[in-house]
């Protein structure tokens, strides 16, 4: 299991995180606080980690709010509140007298009233997050809460609960509620959502990912490859035309190239021969590990293409073998 790794903070990341944090803090105080008490949320510390690592690390009883994301990006994000925070926030919303709250916290049980009240806190915070994300990113992102009222880890949380099969950006912060011990608040966002929202590629401390340049005319296949290869060690650059391979191959950190050519017919047409010779003549491509194939590639016609001087030609399937090839290659 991959260990948590700190995300290198940039001005854009800091600014985005601060605005989200300020929005939440303001909303919590608007909703819940009295004049003489202020709820404080500390700055987010952003980490990247697999969800398994997060689940293994959290020990305190927590309540999870699931948030569906729709329209421009489809996925889910998750919010973990420590049980006591959830009870306190719900109680503040219900304006429960302090003595009753203290009594409740002596033996914290997340009863139906707490669930209803905290569900409403979560719903309103989700609304704030929805507004913040849409305003900050200018993207048509729509968030909607799904609150299932369970207490974790008392009620086991399974990996299949987490919709996006990728690493998560974990925004960890402290929540300080007056007269209460400081507690943790964690927001888990799929890495791809975080990157889409900020329009950036995040960088990780101590990790310099290898770039993999790919082309196929099959968009679904390109998406599949991106899903399986985009991780903390490799990053896929997908291009929609073969010519773009030639223009982008010179950039630093390109570690491998994958090309699924349009179906070739043999004997080769003049047009296909010109394309293959252009690729063969590209010095950068000839020096990099490459995986070049096409639908129906056979040993016989591969030999014919190799005669044109093109390296990396294989009968391997782009959809089934390429990702495995890259993973084996990048591990070495």
């Amino acid at each position, binding site marked *: 299991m991959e260990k948590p790794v700190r995300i290198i903070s940039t001005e854009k990341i800091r600014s985005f995180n601060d605005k989200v944090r300020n929005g939440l803090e303001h*909303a919590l105080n*608007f*909703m819940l606080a009295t004049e003489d008490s202020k709820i404080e949320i500390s700055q987010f510390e952003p980490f990247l980690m697999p969800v398994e690592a997060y689940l293994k690390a959290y020990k305190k009883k927590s309540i999870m709010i699931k948030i569906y994301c729709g329209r421009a990006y489809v996925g889910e994000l998750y919010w973990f509140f420590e049980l006591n925070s959830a009870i306190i926030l*719900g109680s503040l*919303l*219900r304006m429960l007298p302090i003595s009753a709250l203290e009594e409740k916290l002596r033996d914290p049980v997340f009863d139906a*009233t707490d669930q*209803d*009240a905290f*569900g*409403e806190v979560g*719903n*309103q915070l*989700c*609304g*704030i997050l*929805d*507004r913040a994300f*849409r305003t900050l990113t200018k993207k*048509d992102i*729509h968030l*909607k*809460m799904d609150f299932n009222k369970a207490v974790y880890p008392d009620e086991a949380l399974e990996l299949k609960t987490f919709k996006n099969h990728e690493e998560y950006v974990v925004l960890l912060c402290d929540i300080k509620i007056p007269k209460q011990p400081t507690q943790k608040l964690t927001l888990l966002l799929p890495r791809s959502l975080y990157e889409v929202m900020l329009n950036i590629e995040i960088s990780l401390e101590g990790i310099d990912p290898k770039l993999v340049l790919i082309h196929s005319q099959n968009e679904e296949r390109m998406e599949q490859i991106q899903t399986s290869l985009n991780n903390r060690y490799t990053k896929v650059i997908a291009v929609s035309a073969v010519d773009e391979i030639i223009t982008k191959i010179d950039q630093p950190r390109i570690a491998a190239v994958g090309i699924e050519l349009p179906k070739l017919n043999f004997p080769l047409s003049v047009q296909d021969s010109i394309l293959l010779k252009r690729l063969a003549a590209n010095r950068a491509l000839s020096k990099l590990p490459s995986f070049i194939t096409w639908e129906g590639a056979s040993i016989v016609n591969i030999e014919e293409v190799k005669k044109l001087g093109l390296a990396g030609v294989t009968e391997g399937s782009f959809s089934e073998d390429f990702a495995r090839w890259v993973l084996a290659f990048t591990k070495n």
Partner: protein
Amino acid sequence: MNILVVDDSSTMRMIVIKSLRQAGYESATVIEASGAKEALQKIAAGGVDIVLSDVNMPEISGIELVKVIRAKMPKLPIIMITTESSPEMKQEMLSAGANGIITKPFPPEEMTKALGPFIK
């Protein structure tokens, strides 16, 4: 004046009622409904002057509720109270027949602003 407050969350109904009081509607009679079906029953019983309804509710959404009410009572004022703030969602509520929208969390003045035009 009878105000029907529709929300599946009892906490939220309590907050809406408190806001009504703070906004100066102390003398209004508040009727509560924890869902659309109950709301329709209470409207059918008669005497409801204004509806304040949540949007995201289980079983029947607030938007569906507005459509059903509108089909029978074109003039009954309906104000939506919601966390939904996107222009698309607001448009959907208004197209369904809502007269106004209050976005949560809200100060009592928002309540006055939304209800004012419908209270003589």
